[in-house]
C-alpha cells in the first residue's frame, strides 16, 4: 500500500515545531490511542475493499484513494511498527515504513478533507472495523503534530479563547436578548439555578438564532426551569472534530461544571450531531467518572415532551422525507425518536433510498463543512443526496442537525435547488397548539 496520494499540493501547518518533532508528536499520540478495541480493529482488516462501497466520497467520485481503510494507512503503519504484538520484529526487519512528515502533511486530505467520520463504512465491514472511530483517533495525532486544515485550526484557536467558535461568553446575554426580542419569546440567561442547562450550536449563536427561540418557546410552554449560561453554552465541540483532546475536555467540562453549578439535572443539547457524539458518549471519559447530569439531544427532548403530552402539535398533513444525521442515528442510536416526532406532526414520511442507520452523510460532518478545500467533494456528495430526496417525491425535507442543514443548504445553493431544508425543532415550535 502506498502513502496517500494527493491532488492538492498545499497543506497547512500550525506552530513552529520542527518536522521531526511533528512526526514524533503524531507517533506518540497514535500509540497512546492503541487500546484493545483499536488494536483489534487494526489487526483484523482483510483488505476486501468493501468499505469503499459505503463511503459517500468514494461512491460519488469513484476515486480509490477515498477507500475508508486507505484513509487509515498511516495509523496502520504506526500501529504495526510501534504497538502490534510483533512490533519489535517489524521494526528490526524494516517491514513497515515509519510515516514521514511528507506522508503526514499529505494525509490531511484523507483524514480531514474526505472523511466525515460518519461511520457508514463500519456497517459494511465484514470484520466490524469501526473506521470512523479510528479516523477520530488519527486526528488526535494530527492535531498534536500541528497538521490540520487552517480553517479548522482557526476555529480551534477561537474556541480555546472564547469557549465557542461563534462568540465569547460575555456576548451571550446580548445575543439571547436580541433573539428574544426578534422572535417575541423569553430566553433565560445566567439564572443562578435551573433544572435544565440549555446549550446551542455555534451557528445558532450567529445566523440561526431562530433555533434558540424555538427551543425557548417549547421549554417555556412546558413550564421548565431552564437557562442558558455564559459558563457553558456552545455544545458543538470543535475539539471533537479537530482532534484537539485538550479543547474537547475543556469544552465538555464547561458544560458539565456549569450544569452542576446551577443545580441542573439535565443538559439539553442543540440540533447538532457532533455535539451529541462529544457530550452524550464522550463527556464521561473527560469527566473521569459517571456524569452527575443527564445529557439529551433536542430530538430526544421533543420526543419526550410530545410522548408525555407536555406539548401538543398541529398536524401538518403533508409528505416529508428525513435526512438522518450520522452522529445522532448511525453513531448515536436515535433513529426512532425523530420519526415519532415527524409522525406526531402528521407528516407522512417517505424514506430516502438509504435512510436510518444506513443513510448517507450530508457530506459536511467531522468539520468538512468548514473545510474550504473540501467544497468540490461536498458538492459531489450533495448530488447523491439531492437525487435520493427527489426520488421520494416528498414535499418537505427535514433534518435534526444544524450542521447537516447548513451543508445541505450550501449544496442546494450551488445546485440551484430551491428545496428548503427544515429543522425538526423548527417544525415543532412553529406548530405548537395551545
Amino acid at each position, binding site marked *: 500500500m502506498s502513502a496517500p496520494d494527493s491532488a492538492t499540493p498545499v497543506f497547512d501547518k500550525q506552530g513552529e515545531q520542527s518536522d521531526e518533532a511533528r512526526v514524533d508528536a503524531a507517533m506518540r499520540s497514535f500509540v497512546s490511542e492503541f487500546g484493545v478495541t483499536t488494536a483489534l480493529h487494526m*489487526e483484523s482488516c482483510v483488505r476486501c475493499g468493501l468499505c469503499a462501497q459505503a463511503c459517500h466520497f468514494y461512491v460519488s467520485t469513484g476515486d480509490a484513494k477515498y477507500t475508508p481503510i486507505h484513509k487509515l494507512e498511516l495509523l496502520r503503519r504506526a500501529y504495526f511498527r510501534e504497538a502490534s504484538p510483533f512490533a519489535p520484529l517489524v521494526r528490526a526487519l524494516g517491514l513497515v515504513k515509519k510515516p514521514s512528515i511528507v506522508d503526514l502533511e499529505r494525509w490531511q486530505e484523507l483524514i480531514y478533507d474526505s472523511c466525515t467520520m460518519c461511520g457508514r463504512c463500519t456497517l459494511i465491514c*465484514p470484520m466490524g472495523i469501526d473506521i470512523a472511530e479510528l479516523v477520530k483517533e488519527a486526528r488526535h495525532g494530527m492535531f498534536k503534530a500541528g497538521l490540520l486544515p487552517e480553517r479548522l485550526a482557526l476555529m480551534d484557536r477561537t474556541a480555546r479563547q472564547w469557549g465557542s467558535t461563534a462568540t465569547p461568553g460575555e456576548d451571550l446575554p446580548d445575543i439571547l436578548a436580541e433573539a428574544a426580542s426578534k422572535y417575541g419569546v423569553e430566553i433565560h440567561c445566567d439564572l443562578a439555578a435551573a433544572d435544565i442547562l440549555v446549550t446551542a450550536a455555534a451557528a445558532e449563536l450567529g445566523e440561526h438564532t431562530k433555533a434558540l427561540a424555538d427551543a425557548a418557546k417549547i421549554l417555556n410552554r412546558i413550564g421548565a426551569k431552564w437557562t442558558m449560561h455564559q459558563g457553558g453554552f456552545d455544545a458543538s465541540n470543535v475539539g471533537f472534530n479537530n482532534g484537539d483532546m485538550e479543547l474537547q475536555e475543556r469544552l465538555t467540562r464547561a458544560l458539565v461544571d456549569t450544569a452542576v453549578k446551577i443545580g441542573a439535572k439535565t443538559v439539553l443539547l442543540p440540533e447538532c450531531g457532533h455535539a451529541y457524539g462529544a457530550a452524550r458518549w464522550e463527556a464521561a471519559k473527560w469527566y473521569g467518572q459517571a456524569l452527575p447530569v443527564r445529557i439529551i439531544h433536542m430530538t430526544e427532548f421533543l420526543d419526550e415532551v410530545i410522548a408525555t403530552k407536555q406539548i401538543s402539535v398541529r398536524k401538518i398533513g403533508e409528505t416529508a422525507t428525513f435526512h438522518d444525521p450520522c452522529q445522532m442515528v448511525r453513531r448515536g442510536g436515535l433513529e426512532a425518536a425523530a420519526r415519532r416526532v415527524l409522525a406526531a406532526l402528521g407528516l407522512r414520511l417517505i424514506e430516502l433510498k438509504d435512510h436510518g442507520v*444506513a443513510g448517507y452523510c450530508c457530506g459536511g460532518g467531522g468539520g468538512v463543512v468548514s473545510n474550504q478545500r473540501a467544497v468540490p467533494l461536498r458538492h459531489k456528495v450533495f448530488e447523491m443526496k439531492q437525487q435520493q430526496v427527489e426520488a421520494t417525491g416528498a414535499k418537505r425535507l427535514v433534518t435534526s442537525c444544524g450542521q447537516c442543514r447548513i451543508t445541505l443548504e450550501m449544496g442546494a445553493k450551488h445546485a440551484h435547488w430551491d428545496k428548503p431544508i427544515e429543522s425538526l425543532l423548527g417544525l415543532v415550535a412553529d406548530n405548537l397548539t395551545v
Partner: protein
Amino acid sequence: MDLLSFARGPALTVALVVFVLGTLWRLAGVMRRPRMPDLSPAREGAPANLVGALRAVVHGMWPRKEFVQASLVTTVNGYVFHIGLALVFFGYAPHIAFIRRLTGLSWPALPDMVMYLAAGATIITLLAALVSRLTNPVLRTISTADDLITWTLTFLPMITGMAVVFEPSATILARDQVIYPVPLAVHLLTLELLLIWFPFGKLMHAFLFAFSRGATGMRFNHRGIRL
C-alpha cells in the same frame, strides 16, 4: 530422513509450534492492550454488552440489505471459498486420517465427488480473488505484501493437493505405503508453510473476526444503535 519423513516429522512439529504459539502471542498481545472503559450511561433498555457483541458477530455473517448489491460478488466468492476450504480440509478422507494420526480424533468423510467439486470451486474463487486484487483499483490501492503472500500460501496446498489425487480416497487409504511420497511431502510442506505464516498475516482473521465484530457490537449496543 526422506522428504516425506521430514514433512511428517520435524517440519510438521515446527509448523504446529509456530502456529499455536504465534497465534496465542498475537491474540494475547492485542488483548492485553489498555482497556478504555465507557463511562457514559448506556441507552435505556440496551441489552447486556455480551448480547450486543454476539449479535454483531452474527449480523456480520451477511451484509445489510443496503449493501447486498454492492458487496454480493465479494460476499458470495468469500462464502464459496470458505465453505469449500472447510469441506476439503475437514471432509476429505485422507485429511481425516492425517488428523486422526495427530490427535486421535476422526469423523465420517464426505464422498470424493463432493471433495473434487469443493476443491474446484475453492480454486476458482481463489483465482477470482487474485484477479480482482490485481485489477480492481480499490484493491490495488489498499493491498499489501500480506495479501499476495497469504494468497500464495493458501493456493499452494490446494494445487499440490490436487496433484496427489490420482485415485479414490478409499484406494489411497487401503495401501500400507505411500506411492507418491515426494508430491505428498510437497503438499504437506505447503500446508506447513501456511501454518507458519498464519500468525503473522491476515489469516489471523479466522480468530480475530469475532473479537473485532464483537467490540463494535458492544459499542453500538451501548448506544442503542440497531445493526
